């Protein structure tokens, strides 16, 4: 996201500032203590609680709950949705940011605004929009029914809303990056005789790869974890249209706490893995930024 880049850029000055600003030890420890307590209470305790609850009845029931057919179906469906939604939004995100960053056209600002729409709209409303469009009484409902196509309360609907909800992640990450890089390298490649595809593959893609990966990771995390919008269009059919988050809810509502937390623990682990990947990519990204900054310094010296 745009903010994340700004954050990454601001790291340098902040670390330098730390040496200048120094509080008294007591104040410092007090502030750090408060921050840690807050972090522990709101982030670490819930995380541990999920795992404790998941293993409440021992390791056997924990794995049994995950190997249960409905749970397996939910895992499969979640993976399927992610496998479709993430590539779709990756392609769209790259195409949109390419267009926004490298060209001027009518409606550019509109496109920039519309890309953010899924972030500003409540997921429940997003789900309802699709019910309104494709539901039995919706606009396209009768036509779909005539042709025997089911979208709402079926897998296609779940995929559609997931695509909608995860729409902005890749584009939001890439637009500022591509804008910062400009078009000179692409122009140079074109002058040297490279075609459009060659230019994209050999010049643009290598330049954006870390930002792109970062966007894809965030997009994937959301695609697997989305609850609200999916809940509206899924119909909660066990073993058929329940994704993992929905399965957790179903189990929980049946007071099957340990099973609910067993499935939830998978989602939690997904989150942890995402965080680790995100950190790695951010680290790589920062390295690249540092290189770029270094380059700017060299250029400045040359001036």
């Amino acid at each position, binding site marked *: 996201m745009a903010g994340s880049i700004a954050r990454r850029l601001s790291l340098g000055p902040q670390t330098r500032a730390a040496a200048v600003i120094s509080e008294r030890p007591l104040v410092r420890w007090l502030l750090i203590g408060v921050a840690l307590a807050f972090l522990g209470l709101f982030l670490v305790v819930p995380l541990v609680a999920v795992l404790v609850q998941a293993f409440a009845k021992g390791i056997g029931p924990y794995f049994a709950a995950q190997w249960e057919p409905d749970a397996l179906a939910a895992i499969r469906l979640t993976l399927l949705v992610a496998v479709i939604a993430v590539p779709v939004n990756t392609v769209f995100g790259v195409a949109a940011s390419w267009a926004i960053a490298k060209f001027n056209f009518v409606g550019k600002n509109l496109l920039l605004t519309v890309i953010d729409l899924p972030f500003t709209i409540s997921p429940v409303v997003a789900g309802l929009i699709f019910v309104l469009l494709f539901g039995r009484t919706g606009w396209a409902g009768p036509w779909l029914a005539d042709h025997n196509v089911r979208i709402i309360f079926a897998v296609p609907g779940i995929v559609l809303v997931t695509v909608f909800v995860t729409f902005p992640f890749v584009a939001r990450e890439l637009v500022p990056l591509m804008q910062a890089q400009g078009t*000179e390298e692409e122009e*140079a490649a074109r002058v*040297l005789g490279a075609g459009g595809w060659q230019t994209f593959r050999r010049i643009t893609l290598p330049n954006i790869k870390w930002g792109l990966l970062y966007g894809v990771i965030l997009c994937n995390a959301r695609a697997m974890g989305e609850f609200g919008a999916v809940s509206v269009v899924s119909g909660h059919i066990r073993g058929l249209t329940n994704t993992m988050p929905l399965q957790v809810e179903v189990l929980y509502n049946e007071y099957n706490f340990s099973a609910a937390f067993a499935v939830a623990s998978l989602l939690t682990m997904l989150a942890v893995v995402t965080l680790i990947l995100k950190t790695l990519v951010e680290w790589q990204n920062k390295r690249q930024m540092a290189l770029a900054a270094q380059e700017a310094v060299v250029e400045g010296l040359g001036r």
Partner: protein
Amino acid sequence: MSIEVHDISKTFGTFAALRSVSLRVETGELVALLGPSGSGKTTLLRIIAGLEQPDAGSGPIRFEDTDVAGRGVGERRVGFVFQHYALFRHMTVFENIAFGLKVRPKRVRPPRSVIRDKVLSLLKLIQLESLANRYPHQLSGGQRQRVALARALAIEPKVLLLDEPFGALDAKVRQELREWLRRLHEKIHVTSVFVTHDQEEALELAARVVVMNEGRIEQIGTPEEVFHDPKTAFVMNFLGHVNLFHGRMEEGKVRFATVACDAPDHAPSSAEAVMVFVRPHELQVDTKRNGQASFSATVLRVSSAGPNVRLELVADSGDQIYAEMPQERFRALNITRGSRVFVTPREIRVFTET
């Protein structure tokens, strides 16, 4: 290969970057497009390269006898050096230079070993053999510029186009690279056009200078022609330092700053109000009247650091002017701040007031 553009216009929104420009560059020539920012020089260069499309209704762009206006940028086979180098940041120096050869379609792509030899010989040409495996961010500005040039030359272009090639470098590196580029051009003799806003660079390096202003060509000529025989007030003003007086034509004489000089041949005969330009070194300063048409002035300030002494004067007419003279002359005159002097314009240029 010669380049000829005819009647080229380019508009960005409501801004006219080029207004019906025509230009011919001969085979093997080194030509400078010189002008202030916004004069259209870079736009003209980019149109020649194919990076920008001229407005509809513009004339042809000929390379030798072929009209390339309809050809894409990749098909024109020009070497282009960008102002900020535009090196591929994720590729080494070697890969950067090899790029133009590697992306060719299979049937015209040279074999690996040929590409390798070609790149190595170019590295030798730019004297950076030892840096083949460095990345652009590990190079200095001057080194990057040379890599950018080698990359452009790798495709054996018939035309070399350089956009402010030394714009981002410090004065010393600039001078070195300028020399180096001149020698390189003498060696490979490729038709070259470079854009610059630095008059010194244009006058020193180019065989011919194209002075541009507000989307038009003001004058084309050798450095000597544009400097000593400027055709317009703009060229006069843009090249070198000048003193400007507002005067009048009267009976074959030019009157300005309480002096009347014989009008030079090029002076407009009918116009009443004229602009009179005199270069600082063409103002002769004396402490006594010397019998020639002169005006009196007071010395405001003396700056004598450098090969020439520069005097800031205020004429009795109120005009503030600069005069330059060699150190010996200054010592012989023995003048300081506040001295009264007589100033004789030795060479004047007159243009109709616009």
